[in-house]
């Protein structure tokens, strides 16, 4: 480890200058873009900070696709205020520091609003940066309750909070599946752990016994021992609150181990990869999810358009992102302005009919109402299964 040769300040200075120059030039190009967009006539920029590199690039790419599809559809029907919507994606790598930079970059590029986000860890500094710039941020996937509880007038989300999905899952498990012994698993991510906690407390309130509650390490291929242990606790239902790559493997490996309890997943699991991974083992698996268009109405156009554009079916958050962009476009229309402040104000009082159902935002910016339905896998595809009918207090079939 000897260091021979002399240091070379020349290279160092060169590198520093080159970088500073790069930073300045990109910064100035950013401000140029900002002045460009504020003039009427140019496109309205919507920023999408999502992970496009690293471990979570897959989810981030799905989300960006959802945004792009939404913009395409809006533009195809004439845009808003006579202007086109343009999506600007920035990689936040699921890191706080990169997220902060991605958000600042978007601000400097002159976005009218932001719609996106995946990891809470990046969403916090992103929201902070957008809040300071007065730009509304509609989050599609970040479920940490704290995000909307900071009193920021710019914070919104199209995804429901964990504390709403959990009780629905618990109600289905106890009152429809009549399970007394339930296992709950998560992957130690913010979202999954939150949903698991909410479900566990709802289950206990509903009188079920939680016989297993633990986390797995995502990214590992082998969950057989995790499943064997669940099997040992003899549950009737296993509710997994993590994401589809692991749930697909869990379904497949549970079948291989000859385990027979009912497997159910949270709303991060309705991804076509799940069925590809699990194969026939996916049949009969159930998931809680928002009432997505694809499961409810005849409007299958979203799914087929997505499929046509990107070669795969939409990911679990593509739909929430599609609605996040949609609701922003609606707010621009309502406000008759693409000024961030006016958009934020319009979002407060909006009522939107999206592909994840009708919703508005409460005073915190949280989505209301959040409806959940149960879907299941039948012959290798997701189909709607049950929903809760509040008039009869019963779970009823969806066709």
């Amino acid at each position, binding site marked *: 480890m000897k260091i021979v040769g002399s240091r070379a300040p020349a290279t160092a200075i060169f590198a520093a200058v080159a970088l500073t120059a790069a930073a300045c030039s990109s910064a100035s190009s950013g401000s140029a873009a900002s002045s460009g967009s504020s003039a009427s006539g140019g496109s309205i920029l919507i920023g999408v900070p999502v992970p496009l590199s690293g471990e979570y690039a897959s989810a981030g790419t799905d989300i960006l696709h959802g945004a792009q599809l939404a913009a395409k559809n809006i533009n195809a029907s004439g845009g808003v205020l006579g202007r086109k919507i343009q999506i600007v994606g920035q990689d936040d790598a699921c890191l706080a520091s990169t997220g902060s930079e991605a958000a600042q970059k978007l601000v400097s590029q002159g976005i009218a609003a932001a719609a996106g986000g995946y990891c809470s860890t990046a969403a916090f500094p992103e929201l902070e940066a957008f809040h300071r710039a007065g730009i509304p941020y509609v989050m599609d996937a970040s479920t940490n309750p704290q995000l909307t509880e900071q009193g920021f007038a710019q914070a919104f989300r199209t995804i429901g909070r964990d504390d709403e999905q959990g009780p629905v899952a618990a109600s289905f498990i106890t009152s429809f599946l009549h399970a007394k012994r339930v296992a709950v698993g998560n992957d130690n991510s913010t979202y999954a752990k939150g949903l698991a906690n909410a479900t566990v407390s709802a289950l206990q309130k509903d009188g079920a016994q939680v016989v297993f509650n633990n986390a797995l*390490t995502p*990214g590992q291929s082998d969950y057989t*021992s*995790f499943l*064997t*242990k669940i099997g040992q606790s003899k549950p009737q239902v296993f509710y997994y609150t993590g994401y589809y*790559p692991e749930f*697909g493997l869990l379904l497949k490996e549970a079948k291989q181990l000859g385990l027979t309890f009912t497997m159910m997943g949270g709303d991060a699991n309705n991804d076509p990869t799940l069925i590809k991974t699990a194969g026939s083992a996916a049949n009969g698996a159930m998931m809680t999810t928002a009432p997505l268009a694809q499961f409810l109405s005849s409007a299958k156009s979203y799914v087929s358009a997505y499929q046509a554009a990107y070669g795969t079916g939409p990911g679990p958050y593509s739909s929430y992102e599609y609605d996040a962009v949609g609701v922003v476009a609606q707010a621009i229309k309502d406000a008759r302005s693409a000024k961030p402040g006016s958009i934020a104000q319009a979002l407060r009082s909006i009522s939107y009919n999206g592909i994840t159902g009708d919703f508005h935002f409460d005073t915190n910016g949280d989505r209301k109402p959040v409806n959940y339905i149960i879907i299941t896998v039948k012959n290798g595809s997701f189909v709607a299964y049950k929903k809760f009918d509040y008039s009869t207090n019963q779970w009823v079939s969806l066709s």
Partner: protein
Amino acid sequence: MSAFLQYVVNGLTSGAFIALVALGYTMIYGVIRLINFAHGDVLMVGSFIGYELVVTLAARHWPVALVVLLALVGGMAFTGGLGMLIERVAYQPLLNSSRLAILISALGVSLALEQGAQLIFGAGFSAFPSVLPSAGFSFAGAHASYVQLGMFVISVLLMGGLYLFVHKTMAGTAMRALAMDKDAARLMGINVQRTILLTFMLGSVLAGASGVMQGMYYTEINFFMGFLIGLRAFTAAVLGGIGNIPGAMVAGLLIGLIGSFSDGYISSEWSDAIIFAVLIAVLVFKPTGLFGERVAERV
């Protein structure tokens, strides 16, 4: 009892995969003292090559056995070449520099392979078509599939083959000589460059085989998969005594078992911490791993 047996079966299965990858780390470390961070990513590339082959060939309705064989051979051949290319381009010019420079170069290769794969194959997960039969059998309350058994046997055969290669052939002897003393090996007429290249090829071929097999067995692959597999395999290589081929095999199985028992009897969320704690404890008492390193210390 049946649960215990099941944990053993599960542990041995994942352990066999870990061991196969650990061999690559250990071999490469043995000859050039490099922790090859790109090794897990070479495995990932092997997985994707196997995936493309299976998808293409299965669509033409070729016999399953042939598809599996071709995918395996194709994946191994590709990663073998890739391993040699990496060695030539990114490591060989740095063999006489600081060992940290080559480590950073390895990190660069790892990141480049991940990003390249993301650009080519996409960020999402790909799932191998299920070409393999899923039938299995039970004994004493534990379940195993024939494929699982087959994969385990192939892993053990590959490891055994490697062991024989390293200990019974001229090329293997050259590798061992190089591991012990590079300069002496050179003086004895061993072509050092070629032997290093051969080691990279062999290690990468094993990674490729492992990648294709894991892909077929677990079905799900993506560009980031090499990272976690690599981490565990690297741990196994060190636990067994880095540079020590039988040590890596045993330690790989052992890590599989520890992970499995920890999932089963302690808590799955602590499993990785437990594996590392065991590793640290072992190293404190046996500073060169369970089986000691085979690399002779320079005197």
